[in-house]
């Protein structure tokens, strides 16, 4: 078992944002979490990655308890994520964005950095090479010295995923990867996600609004509403689950 969340509950003040969330994730799976706005989907990601500390429950990643760990420790264990609204380091170059994500792979001490001695130069070279290789895989090496704020939107999204991959994750959490992408590009995005999954041997959890994307690539779905899990199963089952239709579609009248 790669990730196991057991009865995870989180309160903001008196408001219950996530209640009794359970998830068993096997290596190599691609699971989707869907639900209407404010259902607590992103909160689940924040709980897994340590941005918030779960009020109750336990989250175990390869048998290591995550609750109580700091976000950077959790990332170093092998969990990376992207953000709903892109959060790149805007004033920094594409290369720096990727190198920063390799922070804990760098093996030299502050003193070596201050005087540029010891392992400094070989380590800098190693990380730079790794970063450039990664950028090449993502076909972004030609933008290496560009400020990331100057990239077009699509490339910013791609850079965010590349940056997440630089932390060398086993588990990738994608928070609405299709946000802001026009419907014609959905198919491309689906292929892209499948591709990184194979390329990097990843397990993926995906939060999404775009039903076409979720139904197209997820093997398993969980549906949240007001913090509670109201359904889970295969995409086809979810599609016909009356509870989901009521909670999710009934109000919004969206298409499935």
């Amino acid at each position, binding site marked *: 078992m790669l990730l196991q969340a057991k009865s995870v509950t989180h309160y*903001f003040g008196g408001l219950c944002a996530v209640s009794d969330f359970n998830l068993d994730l096997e290596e190599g799976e691609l699971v989707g979490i869907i639900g209407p706005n404010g259902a607590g989907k*992103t909160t689940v990601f*924040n709980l897994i990655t340590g*941005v918030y500390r779960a009020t109750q429950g336990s989250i175990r990643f390869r048998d290591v308890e995550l609750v109580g760990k700091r976000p950077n420790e959790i990332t170093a264990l092998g969990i990376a994520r992207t*953000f709903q609204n892109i959060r790149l380091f805007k004033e920094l170059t594409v290369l720096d964005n990727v190198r920063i994500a390799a922070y804990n792979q760098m093996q030299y001490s502050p003193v070596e950095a201050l005087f540029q001695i010891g392992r400094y130069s070989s380590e800098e070279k190693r990380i730079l090479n790794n970063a450039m290789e990664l950028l090449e895989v993502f076909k972004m090496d030609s933008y290496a010295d560009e400020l990331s704020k100057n990239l077009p939107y699509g490339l910013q999204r791609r850079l965010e995923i590349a940056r997440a991959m630089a932390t060398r994750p086993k588990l990738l959490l994608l928070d609405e990867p299709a946000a802001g992408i026009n419907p014609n590009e959905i198919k491309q995005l689906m292929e892209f996600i499948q591709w990184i999954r194979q390329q990097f041997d990843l397990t993926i959890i995906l939060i999404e609004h775009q039903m076409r994307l979720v139904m197209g690539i997820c093997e398993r779905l969980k549906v949240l509403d007001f913090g509670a899990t109201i359904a889970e199963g295969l995409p086809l089952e979810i599609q016909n689950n009356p509870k989901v239709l009521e909670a999710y579609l009934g109000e919004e009248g969206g298409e499935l």
Partner: protein
Amino acid sequence: MIYILQQSLNALQLGSIYALIALGYTMVYGILTMINFAHGDLFMVGAFFCFIVATFFKLPFIPTLLISMIGVGLLGVTIERVAYRPLRQAPRVSAVITALGVGILLESVMLVIYPYPQSVPTLLPNITWTIGGVTISLLQIIIILLSLGLMLLLDFIVRRTMVGMAMRAISWDKSVVPLLGVPLNLVISATFALGTSLGAAAGVMYSQAFPVIDPYMGVLIGWKAFISAVVGGIGNIRGAMIGGFILGGVEIMVAAFMPSTYRDFVAFTLLLILLIFRPYGILGQPRPQKV
């Protein structure tokens, strides 16, 4: 016991001055999320207005107070218009540094006009009463009551009037409110006018209580008032009042029972301890960061 009562009275007097200045910091912060570092110096200008009006025009207390409040209020609005408004879209810290510059400018201009400390004429009759061993002066009563009155008035304006509603709305979300037809610039100007004139009132009262004034008097008092605003929770108007009285109380009590040189040390250490337990002040609430 009598000593404590006497000191409490002094604490109330100092606290109300801090509170009045802290209000200006907190109002500007609430609406522009900017620390107006020039505010302490506007307080100083208020004291000098009082000195000028009282010395050269020989007006009584109330007109002097009103004139300096209006004068400094206009000055505050002008400063916002000329120096802060162009920087609203700039990095936040540029506005703060500009404010720092404006503060130094005010000090320097005053220094050129009055290079030496000036003594302010007394505008209120020196009447004191002794009740059960505690001495109360007319000045103390006026300072405390006037401050409380001004604070209640401000609280009323912010909570019950249209302008106040607009202020609260803008402090909540600066980008949406103008879309609803609220004249953003007018409301910001009103905020500055109110905040700085309260600072001027504090300056006038301070110069009556401690009649020797100099151009640098606003620096330390300004910082302390700012700290009061933080203690109460910056951006929160009632918090600023509470913070002012707390800081005034702590300072007077420390001076009363310990060597007075420990005053700053104890006050600031307490501030740090408070911030450890309530990082956003007494009434402040952290704005949740969306991830």
